[in-house]
């Protein structure tokens, strides 16, 4: 939602919206987001971010965890951009 979108910061805690379900599909070799009568096939970076959106971790913690997992730095803007898009599409909400 717009108001949630406006206050996205390092302390925001994104969570998958209740209508959606994130799940790994072996037959497709990828994570998908399931919702009423629909499915979104996710690429690797989208699934890695969404897997960590549990409503408890902050955006800063999610970014740090991803940087650790993939032994890299400077993911902050990429993660923020994706979360902003996902909030707009209502895949995510902020707790």
């Amino acid at each position, binding site marked *: *939602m717009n108001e949630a979108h406006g206050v996205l910061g390092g302390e925001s805690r994104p969570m998958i919206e209740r*209508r959606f379900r994130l799940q790994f599909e072996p*037959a*497709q070799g990828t994570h998908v987001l*399931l*919702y*009423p*009568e629909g*499915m979104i096939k996710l690429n690797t970076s989208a699934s890695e971010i969404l897997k960590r959106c549990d409503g408890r971790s902050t955006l800063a913690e999610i970014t740090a965890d991803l940087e650790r997992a993939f032994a890299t730095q400077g993911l902050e803007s990429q993660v923020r951009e994706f979360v902003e898009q996902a909030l707009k599409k209502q895949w995510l909400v902020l707790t």
Partner: protein
Amino acid sequence: MSAPPRSGPPLWLLCELTYRCPLHCVFCYNPIDFAMQKGELSTEEWLKVLREARALGAVQLGLSGGEPLVRDDLEILVAEAHRLGYYINLITSGVGLNEARIRALKEAGLDHIQLSFQDSTRQMNDFLSSTRTFELKSRVAALIKQYDFPMVLNVVLHRLNIDHVEAILDMADRMGAEYVELANTQFYGWAWHNREQLMPTRAQVERAEAVTQRFRERQSRPMRIFFVVPDYFERRPKACMNGLGSIFLTVTADGTALPCHAARMLPGLTFPNIRTASMSEIWYDSEGFNHYRGEGWMKEPCRSCPERGRDFGGCRCQAYLLTGDAANADPVCDLSPHHGRVVEAVARAEARAAVRAGTDGGTGAAAGAAEPLVFRTPDASRALSGAGR
């Protein structure tokens, strides 16, 4: 004909659990001869369908009918489907959904409920379904919210209710629906039989689209509205089923497996039955699923059309119904030499409207003799299928 390419998995499984239904809707897509089909699958047979299709990769599950709540093993099927990892959509009229059952379905792991309404008022809803169900459906809508299911409200649109779109959207909003499907009638099954009575005019369609757009602009609560355009008013066909045998698999009440819920009508094809074939054999090896895969079956103008990879030539059933040959281009396409048949069907709707409005100069000639609407009842099914005469 070259061998079709190996298909990906059947991502969507639609189980038409039964053809029994307390409603008698005039636009139902079920086959006209539904009452002639015998031998509904048992619980064990449905469980086999669910397990084998899931192993192939099916993940979106539709439980439909007829009215799926007529089956008293629905909760068992939902529980197993949930355990297997399906996203489970119950597609229902709401009849039979009391509080005990909705609680049991929640506990079993049902994900979402699509509730049908026939119109925004009791009078029209009850007339179009030939039942007194409007109040009941309204109570079911409240139960769906109470049990925190995402709710899709589905209304099939046609000439008799399309002018009520604004009231329908207001009703959906009041009920707290997350999604609304304004699904213009697709003409198969009973809708095909009643096509002359159900076809809207172009002015009606355009007005409904404009009303929907205005509603979107003023809505305060998030509610996604899908306006499914009636394809007779288009110039390019829908990418029906994303191509037959590409992602979609239907199992009907008697166990027949189809690449589309209307495909049983396609002549010259044998469709496998889950009683005698595994889901893997059905999906990958059967003629019924392989015949219209790929592009080998296409005729001109599709065969050389640059858009064939986008719309796959449209709908095989519509090509068959309107041209007599399922391998022809869907005549919705204005490149089809048979496009005139679609144009004529729309023109007849315009003529009928003119007669009703008294603006045809009093001749009424183009409208032809008005046939009555035929409701989807077992008796009508048997009569139209040549039984009981």
